[in-house]
């Protein structure tokens, strides 16, 4: 199954927020660490609500966390 055409900056945002762990992020939005890892590795596209919650944790707009990869783009 092809990965969704969405990239994310969760790893960098976690680093910028004092090396926040996947578990800490997962706990703050009511998910498991495994689901956060799957989102971070682009193996699972979260729901819109979860995407907003992740952006809220980092205090940024959703577009700073998730980016749509346009067709044909590298």
């Amino acid at each position, binding site marked *: *199954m092809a990965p969704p055409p969405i990239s994310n900056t969760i790893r960098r945002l976690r680093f910028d927020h004092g090396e926040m762990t996947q578990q800490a992020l997962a706990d703050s939005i*009511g*998910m*498991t*660490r*495994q*689901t956060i*890892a*799957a989102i971070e590795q682009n*193996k*699972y596209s*979260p*729901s819109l609500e*979860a995407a907003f919650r992740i952006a809220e944790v980092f205090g940024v707009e959703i577009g700073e966390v998730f980016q749509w990869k346009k067709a044909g783009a590298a």
Partner: protein
Amino acid sequence: MSVQEKTSWIAVLTTLVIWSYYFSAFWGDALAGRIDGEGIRNLFIICMVISVVVMLGLTIVVTVSARQNMDAPPDELERQIEARADSIGFKLLELLAPIVLIGGLLNVDAIRSAFPADPAGSTAILFVNGFLMTMVVVELVREGTKIVLFRMTA
């Protein structure tokens, strides 16, 4: 590995070991022309009790060691995986149940003649165990599907 995935592994391995033994004993006896209703009932109860105790015990150990609440609701990925596994399991059940029923009905005369001592009782026991085996196979496929889907996102 998430608690949900570990629980699926526990279910698959426990089911495989315990119910493989039960069905190999049952079908071995049935194919040899021996159906002992009381013996089968006792073996079924023993297997069911062992199955529940082992699954429940291991699930509690896994949950406690992960320091999670046993009633913790699944998150959206886990719910999605569960829904896909349920869907596949239900379709398999829809396929296998009629096969077992029709296959059994078409062979009622053969079953009755194979067990002249108690044709009605033996037929009923074979039907019940056919359906029980269907349920076990569906459960194995359902839990196996969850494991595959969890591995795909790991």
